[in-house]
């Protein structure tokens, strides 16, 4: 029958698509209540490069939602609703430092940004400890990192339904963090 032969012909493009979109599953997952591993990064973050004893190379933590479209979108919503934009604006900075450049005062690693949000930083960054769930903070981390193109640019949205504020994330060139405070990879 012709139908069965059709499917054998379809195998080639199917295989190509499968390879192309293998990451799609994770990118498109809508995680509503799952709690990503949360507690560990806070203790693991170091403020200083100096340490007693043999020097241990810290592992760079991976953001649980790095390339997840839903988390990124929720992060963006929280970024505005929690008034991050009040100081950092849409990433360009103002009262607070810009988030879309390559300069990270307290580190660009996901765990460092997590700590920055949860613990706060001197000179103005408030603490969100107890104010946001860990999941929400991770969503914010994913969005903040996407602002400078560190991750998630393939799933970030092109624009918001409000006034034009910054160039499309996907058309911006990613920034490589230049700060020394980043744990070595």
């Amino acid at each position, binding site marked *: 029958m012709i139908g069965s032969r059709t499917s054998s012909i379809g195998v080639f493009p199917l295989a190509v698509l499968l390879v192309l979109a293998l990451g799609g599953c994770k990118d498109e997952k*809508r995680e*509503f*209540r799952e*709690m990503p591993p949360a507690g560990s990064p806070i203790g693991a973050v170091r403020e200083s490069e100096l340490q007693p004893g043999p020097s241990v190379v810290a592992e760079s933590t991976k953001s649980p939602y790095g390339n997840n479209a839903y988390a990124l979108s929720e992060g963006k*919503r929280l970024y505005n*609703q*929690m008034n991050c934009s009040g100081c950092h604006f849409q990433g360009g900075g103002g009262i607070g430092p810009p988030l879309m450049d390559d300069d990270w005062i307290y580190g660009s690693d996901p765990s460092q940004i997590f700590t920055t949000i949860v613990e706060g930083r001197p000179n103005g960054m408030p603490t969100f400890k*107890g*104010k*946001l*769930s860990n*999941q*929400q903070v991770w969503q914010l981390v994913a969005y903040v990192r996407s602002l400078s193109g560190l991750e998630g640019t393939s799933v970030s949205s092109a624009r918001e*339904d409000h006034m034009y504020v910054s160039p499309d994330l996907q058309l911006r060139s990613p920034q490589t963090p230049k700060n020394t405070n980043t744990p070595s990879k």
Partner: protein
Amino acid sequence: MKSRDLLWAALAGVAVACTAYDHQSVLDPVGPQATSTRQLFYFMVAVAVIVYVIVVGALLLVIRNRRTAVDDPQSPAREARAERTIKIAVAIVVPVLFVFLLYDFAVARVVGRMPEGSMLTIDVTGHQWWWEVTYEDPIPHNIFHTANEIHIPVGRPVRIKLASHDVIHSFWVPNLSGKKDLIPGHADDIMIRADQPGIYRGQCAEFCGLEHAKMAMLVVAESPAEFTRWVQLQRQPAPAPVDSVAIAGQRVFESGSCAMCHTIASTQAAATVGPNLTHVAGRMTIAAGTLQNSRGNLAGWILDPQTIKPGAKMPANALAPAELQALLAYLGTLK
């Protein structure tokens, strides 16, 4: 045969639907628009049934009496008869459609016009997935906010100004009126009037994402006196808690994550991301009509909203049992 049986079943079904009381039904109107629309609907059903019976009856007759004789299937006399019949049929259909149009336009006029008089104005803003309700007043401090529950006085026309905070929603309380979409960038309004006291349920009717199914609201039509009392209460700020558990609960609310999204008037909680909770204990439902407002439901909702309403913007809250009990006690005081 089958079709006629089904037709009767259908009519019986419609009849049953009319007699039973329904709190979210087109067929149980309590407002002028819904009432005249129901009349129009019955008229249309009657005409449709007549048309259907005639046409399908003719078809079934033709099939039952189908000829097997060898006479000429193209006899001019019979063709002339068929042509005459069709011409008559079309000549009937066209005026019927005209009557339908005229009646329809008349009803549309009724529906579109509402006696002005002392109009109550309410702003309703659609959010994913709840309704923000604001009662307008010329005196600014008389303006108050609530959510997912609209109280209106019986017999008084109400203008509801519709806006959307995010995507398109649709305001629909079928017992009162047809629906109107809340469209970003297009301010619009809808006028309703409830002629009988009661609680009428409404639901978002335009697909608006994950929890479109759980975006309901209640319209409470009550006597003008009751309504005035309700308004007076809503204008008051939240009563300060008196017992120590409730005081602890207020601290939980203000210091924890609740205050990041919700407002309770006269407290430090003043965020406008989620519904205004100033008088939350006085509402019948929580989570936009998803749950009955009881202490147990509220506890479940606060701890794990994502199981009850997956995708809702309210995060899970890991509260210690004592904190939760205090918070529930405090919320219970917000009558």
